[in-house]
């Protein structure tokens, strides 16, 4: 599904990613954890194509297509969904209008017919119910006046509507209370747990991983993946902290 090889990237001429390699196969859920400043958010923005994040080496393919050659909106149409750590407010544009335009833009570029207003509303209603988000929220302007938790649930409703192949979720768990965390976790499973889909969770904490159990856990440090394991690695991190878990690697460095 996603193949990252020896990826190097800079932000404002500062090297952040320094030779990151990662392969995610269809049907898998991966988690990336790491201390502040390791490059976690940079990775998600580089994969999403955010302006200002410059790739200086390496390659990334999504289902064999060169991801780095595509514009951000083409990446979305190719099946990539980027869940934002800080979802952006767009005053004056309703969620319904935004998501219908987004979905139909994606469908158009894939050669599919656009959804009618009625079909779209039904889809939106289903996905909002899945995330326990009041349908009235979707009639409001994008993320405007939403609480932190509502923004994150709205992100997952967007994901449900857009139905991507690969979701990269950047700290989707931050700002969620315990109940909302469970709802969001269950939503991710319902939308993305499928043999032909994959998820990359970027998180600081183990707790989301109790709901969305990863197949692989990676530790990102100083722009590279320094350790890979199963869910037990996340538990060890939670228990012992990055310094202790990474000590053997650091000793060999």
């Amino acid at each position, binding site marked *: 599904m996603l193949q990252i090889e020896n990826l190097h990237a800079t932000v404002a001429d500062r090297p952040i990613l320094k030779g990151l390699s990662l392969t995610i196969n269809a049907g898998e859920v991966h988690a990336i954890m790491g201390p502040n400043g390791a490059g976690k958010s940079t990775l998600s923005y580089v994969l*999403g*194509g*955010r*302006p200002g994040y410059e790739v200086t080496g390496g390659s990334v393919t999504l289902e064999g297509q060169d991801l780095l050659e595509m*514009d*951000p*909106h083409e*990446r*979305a*149409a190719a099946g990539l*969904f*980027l869940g*934002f750590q800080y*979802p*952006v*407010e*767009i*005053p*004056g*544009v309703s969620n319904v*209008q*935004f*998501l219908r*335009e*987004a*979905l139909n*833009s*994606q469908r158009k*570029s894939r050669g599919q017919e656009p959804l009618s207003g009625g079909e779209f509303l039904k889809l939106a209603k289903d996905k909002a119910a899945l995330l326990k988000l009041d349908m009235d929220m979707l009639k409001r*302007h994008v993320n405007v006046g939403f609480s932190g938790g509502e923004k994150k649930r709205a992100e997952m409703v*967007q994901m449900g509507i*857009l139905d991507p192949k690969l979701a990269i979720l950047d700290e989707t768990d931050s700002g969620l209370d315990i109940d909302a965390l469970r709802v969001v976790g269950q939503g991710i499973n319902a939308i993305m747990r499928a043999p032909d889909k994959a998820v990359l969770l970027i998180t600081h904490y183990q707790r989301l991983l109790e709901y969305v159990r990863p197949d692989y856990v990676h530790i990102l440090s100083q722009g590279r993946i320094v350790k890979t394991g199963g869910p037990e690695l996340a538990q060890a991190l939670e228990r012992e902290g990055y310094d202790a878990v990474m000590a053997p690697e650091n000793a060999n460095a």
Partner: protein
Amino acid sequence: MPEAGALPTRKDEAWRYAAVEALQGVPLDDWRTITVARGDAMRECVVVEDRADGAEGTVLHRLRVTVREGARCELFAVIAAELYARVEIEVTLGRGAHFEFGGVTVGGRDTVREFVTRVVHAEPEATSNQTVRSVHWGQGTGNFLGTIEVARHAQKTDAAQSFKGLLLEKGASVNAVPQLEIFADDVKCAHGATVGQLDEQARFYMAARGLSPEVARRLLVQAFIGDAFVALDDESERERLMRVALDKLDRHL
């Protein structure tokens, strides 16, 4: 006021950003006068759009409105055509009267499009609300010169004025000249002016959901100028004014 026969110059405050060289041969004393009788309400939409024959030059609309006691006047306007277009409105408000104004200018090349308003709160308890949005590109210029005068005995006046400019390209400009002359002491007069560019964060967020840069830009501009017509209660008129403005933008893209 310039003397009859003499063209105004940019030294005249009300013509400071005007394309005064484009006034040659244009009748300047062609004021249309409107009186809204006591307790009545009137609404008018002024649209400066492309002429059928494709010609362009200078267009002036000059309105002098008297709004009698308890009456209401609503004006909405779009300036989306002509090399130089100016809509100038002088309003005198009686006791408890209301004046509502929403205006949009859009334009590129080296066009100049402007609103000039003078709202006179001549009697107590009148209210006025003005919202102007300007979107320009190329070397285009949009101006809003808005004067509010509150007479000495016009207590409980409530006047508001909001201007926002959106510059899509380097080289475009907007000018806002709010001018308040207040001689009463128990009044509310609010005014605000901002100039900015399209929100880069919002553009990337929209791209990450699959919207092309053109569609994202249209949605953001639509939301931006929509402010000016929030108070326009007639949906088909609102759509007509929005369409005139957005079509001009689309042809630029």
